[in-house]
């Protein structure tokens, strides 16, 4: 079966004055793929991701998300993607249920669907007892799982995750990745940045960003073979050591 391209990026550049945050990157991501987007702090990952989400306009280059152009169809893109930012971004002063209802409503789901999805989601996450509690009172790991579930509530074609597991314990991280696999099985493309190299191993393909450029892109096994490394950790060290940009 021919693999369907969901994200297509060509020569994408983002410059802030003299500083070129994203320097001419090109890649493709396929439907249902879990795509790891790796790089040191300040390598330009978040900037690249923000452009793909339609939050930031590129300086030059082209990209299509789910067939929509990132210059002209940002609002169409937004209907077809989910996004979970580095900062926790549900409303902490709303309850679990209210957050689900709000975001599902914003994506235009009807009341019946919202109700069904909300029950489903709360059951799957085992949040029955907490459904009417403020999100601010939940432990971080639960919040992150909830935020991910909310980000894919409208069954988007792509979900962008910006360091979703930062500060989360290993058990919860493992559960979080189970959720990512489940989403991938439903043909949702997962575009994820992370600093955990064990998580990089879970991805179907991984790209390594250094100083705004993509230095390597392959399956985790492929990368290890190319760089004669035992683990992704070593691959990362070899590539990131060459970086001239200081971390932010």
């Amino acid at each position, binding site marked *: 079966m021919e693999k369907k391209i969901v994200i297509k990026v060509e020569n994408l550049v983002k410059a802030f004055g003299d500083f070129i945050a994203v320097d001419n990157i090109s890649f493709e991501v396929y439907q249902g793929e879990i795509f790891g987007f790796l790089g040191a702090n300040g390598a330009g990952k978040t900037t690249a991701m923000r452009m793909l*989400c*339609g*939050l*930031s*306009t590129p300086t030059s280059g082209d990209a299509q998300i789910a067939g929509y152009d990132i210059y002209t169809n*940002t*609002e*169409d893109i*937004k*209907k077809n*993607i989910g*996004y979970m*930012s580095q*900062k*926790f*971004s*549900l*409303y*902490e002063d709303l309850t679990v249920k209210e957050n689900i209802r709000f*975001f599902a409503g*914003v*994506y*235009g789901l009807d009341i019946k669907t919202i109700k069904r999805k909300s029950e489903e989601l709360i059951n799957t996450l085992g949040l029955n007892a907490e459904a009417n509690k403020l999100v601010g009172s939940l432990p971080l790991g639960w919040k992150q799982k909830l935020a991910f579930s909310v980000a894919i509530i409208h069954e988007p074609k792509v979900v962008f995750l910006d360091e979703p597991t930062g500060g989360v314990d290993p058990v919860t991280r493992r559960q979080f990745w189970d959720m990512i696999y489940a989403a991938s099985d439903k043909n949702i493309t997962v575009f994820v940045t992370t600093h955990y190299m064990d998580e990089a191993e879970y991805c179907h393909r991984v790209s390594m960003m250094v100083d705004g450029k993509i230095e390597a892109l392959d399956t985790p096994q492929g990368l290890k073979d190319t760089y004669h490394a035992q683990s992704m950790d070593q691959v990362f060290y070899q590539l990131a050591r060459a970086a001239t940009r200081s971390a932010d």
Partner: protein
Amino acid sequence: MIFLMPIIQLLILPMAADYEIKNINISIVDHDHSSYSRELTHKIISSGYFVLNDYGQDYQSAFKNFEKDQSDIILEIPHDFEKNIGKLSASSLLVSTNAINGVKAGVGSAYLMQIISNYNQKIRQKWLHYNGQEIKEGMHVESRFWYNKYMKYTFFMVPGILGILVTMVGVYMCSLNIVKEKEIGTIEQINVTPIKKQYFILGKLIPFWLIGIFVFSVGLFVVARGIYGIIPIGSYFPLYAFLAIYLVAALGIGLLISTYSSTQQQSMSLTFFLMMIFILMSGLFTPIESMPEWAQFITKLNPVTYFIDVMRRVILKGSTIHELQFDFIVVSIMAAFFNIWAVLNYKKTN
């Protein structure tokens, strides 16, 4: 910004927030048309405190200007003014003062009394000198205060202060709102959703709009009526109709501040700066007519000016929507202007 704000305030505010009452609009109804009545008119105008609004013979038309707030004082000179001075009997002048603005009314009528009594004094001396007769009373002045009969300060201030407070609540709450989302990062999450900008802004407006109406109602019924005993002479309809539009304008200003600021401190200090100017340049304390011309121009751009005007006129005078249509039109334009600006300035993509 930190440096500029106090400097601007220091430059503008003392000039505008001046307690000296000037430019009192006077209508003179002269039934006499004698050299004496003209001389008295001349004396009043040349005092520098009064601006002659109209000079005629018809009390009704003078009173119409009075109702439209175009004149502050009517001086009516009886037709036998000159004759009676000669006849040694008292001549009665009628002074009607618009007391909606109690301070202005009190000071204005006091100035007028003084001018008249000086003039009286002069005539008495003149007559004494030429005719050897003494005029006992000469001119008698009858004084009436309109719209705020007992010149109660609270009647004048409470509606104005209520207007300010509703504005403050609205602008502050609204200006902090989007900024708060910027600080905690939820705005990012909103920006990646397909929500339309105008719906987002509308969603931000409606709750504060309702809160504003609630605060106003508590102020009007519980505080103004319950504690100060102020019962509007006009109906509640023009008040609420105006409030509904006005709040949209005030909240629009808040939203606009919010879209420009990136932290809550920033929007707080910007709001504080604006509120200072809004309060002092609104005619709450200093009558607008007493301000220098450039300051009067600023008051015309200040939405609070219109709100206070409407509040006072409806509550103390009983003005109707028809009489207030200018205020309605201006504030509607402001409401549209600030909100459209806020929607345009709020960018989901940057």
